[in-house]
């Protein structure tokens, strides 16, 4: 496989529009030709000039609007959330493989927190195909639940069912998102499971897929530096999350079971507990 393209060149883009997503996140829309070709699950490196560069999941709406959604978790994400229309950021990417799209059958999507960012984009792609989707969206609280509007609109235009869970019960079912998944898998067979969210949650999803012998794709997160497969900062086993992932199949995750769900490389290269 040859990766050599201009996607890894740094481009400066201006913020076209911003939108609050619940209490802690913002969506920043901008224009970029390479990002319009993005596949759900791919990511971009976002440069906040003079501060930092961080990996962010990329979305492209059916109307070709490119955006990232940022939750405030540290200095760089806080700075991004402060940005206004016409402010400049740098973009490299999209990088990584992205989800492989199921073109028919019954699909289960389960995500939590910011894991819903690539999954909402995925849900919007799937409606182009004759797919029956069950979309489970979870968060800690109602005001941290992302994209209720986008996911709800899928249920109106396609054969998509939506289940919402919150840890505190402020919206939908009061449980973690994997609880309704367990019940669904006990009575129904799915042709593909997609998941993204906190790693312990994805690990539960992985174990469920093993138990029911169902195909799974999970999108992983690691510290990233180069994002072009060179520096080795994002290794999980022998995989480079930036180039071989970030989306991995059940079989691939099985081969790195010692690390997946348990530990990750810290910035100094030491394996640390998740």
């Amino acid at each position, binding site marked *: 496989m040859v990766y050599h393209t201009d996607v890894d060149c740094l481009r400066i883009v201006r913020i076209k529009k911003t939108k609050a997503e619940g209490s802690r996140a913002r969506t920043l829309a901008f224009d970029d030709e390479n990002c319009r070709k993005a596949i759900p699950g791919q990511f971009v490196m976002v440069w906040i000039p003079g501060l930092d560069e*961080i990996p962010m999941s990329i979305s492209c709406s059916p109307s070709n609007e490119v955006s990232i959604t940022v939750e405030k978790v540290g200095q760089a994400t806080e700075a991004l959330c402060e940005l206004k229309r016409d402010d400049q950021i740098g973009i490299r990417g999209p990088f990584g493989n992205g989800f492989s799209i199921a073109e028919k059958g019954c699909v289960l999507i389960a995500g939590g927190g910011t894991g819903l960012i690539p999954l909402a984009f995925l849900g919007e792609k799937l409606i182009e195909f004759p797919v029956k989707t069950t979309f489970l969206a979870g968060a800690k609280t109602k005001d941290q639940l992302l994209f209720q509007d986008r996911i709800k609109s899928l249920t109106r235009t396609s054969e998509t069912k939506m289940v919402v869970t919150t840890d505190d019960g402020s919206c939908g079912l009061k449980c973690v998102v994997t609880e309704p998944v367990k019940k669904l898998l006990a009575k129904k067979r799915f042709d593909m499971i997609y998941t993204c969210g906190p790693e312990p949650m994805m690990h539960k999803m992985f174990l469920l897929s093993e138990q029911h012998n169902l195909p799974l794709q999970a999108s992983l997160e690691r510290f990233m530096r180069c994002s072009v497969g*060179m520096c080795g900062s994002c290794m999980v086993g022998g995989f480079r999350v930036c180039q071989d992932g970030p989306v991995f199949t059940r079989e691939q995750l099985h081969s790195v079971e010692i690390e997946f769900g348990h530990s990750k490389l810290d910035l100094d*290269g030491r394996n640390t507990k998740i």
Partner: protein
Amino acid sequence: MGRELNVELAGLRLANPTMLAAGILGMTSLSLRRVAEAGAGAVVTKSVGLKPRRGYMNPTLVKTDCGYLNAMGLPNPGIGYFEREIREAKTIGCPIIVSVYGFSVEEFVEVAKRASQVGADALELNFSCPHVEKTGSEIGQDPRLLKTIAKAVKKEVDSPVFAKLTPDVASIIECARAAEQGGADAITAINTVRAMAINAETTKPILGNQFGGLSGPALKNIALRCVFEIYRETKLPIIGCGGISRWRDAVEFMLAGAAAVQVGTAISSIGLEVFRSINDGIEAYLATKGFDSVREIVGLSHRC
């Protein structure tokens, strides 16, 4: 075709002359294993020091017109942790060379000793990282200090010792001679060139550390000149490094005098397949030219 690709390098036997360059992957034994499986003749680890380092803030890498610019900042887990990775990498099927850096003679010696004790097949002394103060190229630009460190390490370890040199000097020949006098067993030439990138739209330097090292195709002809000069002026085997991505690059470095070549940046543009692709190309070249072994072409351009 059946042409011989195996080479001998300061006592190490390599199945082919391609090696993974330091700093590329190489932070874990599993990443080294992956590179070995991809066909590299030997692997060099990320540079390891006495204590863990988290490296610089991003951006740590930016693409330029003719390569990449990086300032990772020597992130590494420290030798105490890395000993286990070296031990685990002993079964990957090719020699493992541990890249060592230090902020003093004593640090170089201690890290080298411990790496050697747990099974490093050779050590590559990082006299050339261009973006961390008080080590790397700041040492490599001082031939006397370079010689002192090489000598001190050689005194304490039995494994072969390579000196990786910086091109950011008035005379790389002087540095190579200093390494030779210090008892180094081979020279790796060259590391990245100190450089920077500024973005016009935002008016800001891009790298978190402002300064970094330039790698990739931009380096090739500088590196080739360095290898040629060192081959002419010293007796040490040379490992060519800098902008090698195709078999033709590798062959040119060997004609200039390199006994083996290291590949780094090309892993991003070509993928891990780059090792097999270079080796296949070298083998075809040898067949076309009527050579039996890749060893026959080392330094050949000096005899014209």
